[in-house]
């Protein structure tokens, strides 16, 4: 991870960026004292209206779905039973590292956010979900919880290790894991806000959303809106990898042009062929589109892409988009929870077809592939088939010329920039 080094002096109401990452020290977690010295103390329970502040700030969920945080808080608060809060740090996206960075370096910011949300909802328990393989994150969060003993007596905090895997961090999968030990999505309704952990209404928020909420609780919505655009205010964490000089996690304002983000990440190391925006759950953007694109959901949607959890991979021409996509689609198909027929069979068919396209002596089955891509959408209990279909559709569109080359027995690139991941 690379960020500007934090200043030694207490930094209340940070005026510019980084502000979420302002408390990151060299390479170990901020202690509670250091955390309080950087951001100041959190407001006492009952002294703020967090839902109203979240609404006024325009904060949206930063885990990928982008649901307005104030509305989610209000939906949970409107239920008759005492709710539970889950801080979702189970980051299954292979090319995203932002949640791990927060857990590893700024656990108290996440815990402040979870505590503030619990206060607002009258919840007495907040659970931090961390991926099993993220042992550093788990250790850091446990140490931070221990350190906070007596800091807030109303809310009991605990960390839970959840299975790795692409689908395990999906809200309903997280809840089913906490309830029954099975990390697989469930059929909805009921949605988590209606019935979640122990049948209680449950607020599931990404750890970055909660960290932002911790700062909004302190500094208010106007401060939050000082960067970003009116519709998409604030800053967010971006994970950038691939053909850039300094891959890592960066905090940038919404609205930042992708090319500025690349500059911040050390510039490109080669020409750019395409951008993968939103990680494996996202879509490819060709070089021309990407050059003009900004880090805004509205801008990317207009280009047929989604911002997702802001994981971005820069693909150089020395890598082949068809081969890279075939690897990613294999991972996505193997990551199916195996519950829904259309996901099990459809994703397998799409992945296998892409693998044949990427292999030598490919034959043209793009028509069949397009049909499967259209067919699987909306037919799973969760959105895993939809995300996979969107990824495959964008690969066929952006890498149409590479696909043609494969059909003529040529592969245009040999380098690989996507991580070699296997589904667990």
């Amino acid at each position, binding site marked *: 991870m690379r960020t500007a080094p934090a200043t030694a002096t207490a930094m209340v109401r940070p005026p510019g960026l980084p502000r979420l990452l302002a408390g990151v020290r060299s390479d170990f977690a901020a202690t509670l004292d250091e955390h309080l010295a950087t951001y100041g103390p959190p407001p006492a329970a009952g002294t703020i209206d967090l839902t109203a502040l979240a609404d006024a700030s325009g904060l949206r969920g930063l885990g990928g779905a982008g649901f307005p945080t104030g509305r989610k808080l209000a939906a949970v608060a409107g239920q008759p039973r005492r709710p539970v809060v889950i801080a979702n740090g189970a980051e299954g996206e292979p090319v995203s590292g932002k949640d791990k960075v927060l857990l590893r370096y700024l656990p108290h910011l996440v815990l402040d956010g979870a505590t503030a949300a619990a206060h607002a909802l009258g919840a007495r328990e907040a659970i931090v979900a961390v991926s099993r393989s993220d042992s550093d994150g788990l250790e850091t969060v446990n140490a931070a919880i221990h350190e906070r003993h007596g800091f807030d007596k109303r809310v009991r905090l605990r960390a839970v290790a959840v299975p790795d895997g692409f689908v395990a961090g999906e809200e309903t999968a997280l809840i089913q894991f906490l309830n029954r030990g099975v990390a697989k999505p*469930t059929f909805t309704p009921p949605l988590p806000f209606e019935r979640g952990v122990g049948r209680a209404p449950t607020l599931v928020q990404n750890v970055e959303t909660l960290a932002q909420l911790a700062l909004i609780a302190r500094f208010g919505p106007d401060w939050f809106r000082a960067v970003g655009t009116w519709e998409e205010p604030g800053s967010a964490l971006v994970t950038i990898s691939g053909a850039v000089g300094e891959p890592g996690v960066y905090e940038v304002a919404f609205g930042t042009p992708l090319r500025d983000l690349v500059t911040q990440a050390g510039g490109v190391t080669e020409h750019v062929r395409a951008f993968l925006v939103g990680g494996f759950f996202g879509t490819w953007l060709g070089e021309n589109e990407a050059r003009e694109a900004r880090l805004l959901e509205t801008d990317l949607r207009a280009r047929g892409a989604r911002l997702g959890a802001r994981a971005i991979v820069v693909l150089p021409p020395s890598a082949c988009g068809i081969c890279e996509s075939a690897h990613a689609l294999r991972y996505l198909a193997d990551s199916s929870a195996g519950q829904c027929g*259309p*996901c099990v069979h459809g994703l397998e068919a799409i992945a296998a077809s892409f693998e044949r396209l990427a292999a030598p002596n490919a034959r043209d089955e793009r028509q069949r592939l397009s049909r499967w891509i259209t067919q699987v959408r909306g037919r799973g209990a969760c959105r895993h088939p939809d995300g996979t279909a969107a990824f495959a559709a964008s690969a066929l569109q952006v890498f149409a010329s590479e696909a043609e080359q494969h059909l003529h027995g040529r592969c245009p690139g040999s380098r690989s920039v996507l991580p070699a991941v296997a589904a667990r």
Partner: protein
Amino acid sequence: MKRVRVNPITCEGHGLCAELLPERIQLDEWGFPIVDPEPVTGEAARHAARAVEACPTLALLLENAQGGR
């Protein structure tokens, strides 16, 4: 107004629904239903009710057209 919806977790692809409600349900090449979310009325509504009854895994649901996810 009602429409049909499949619980994809409980559905095992028996395919009876596509025979009983061809107006709204087709099967994919693995035998799993592709459902048209258009509300069912008149005769289609009767067919839908029968298909819901016949599903061996109780995976086919009739729900209010306004509700849902």
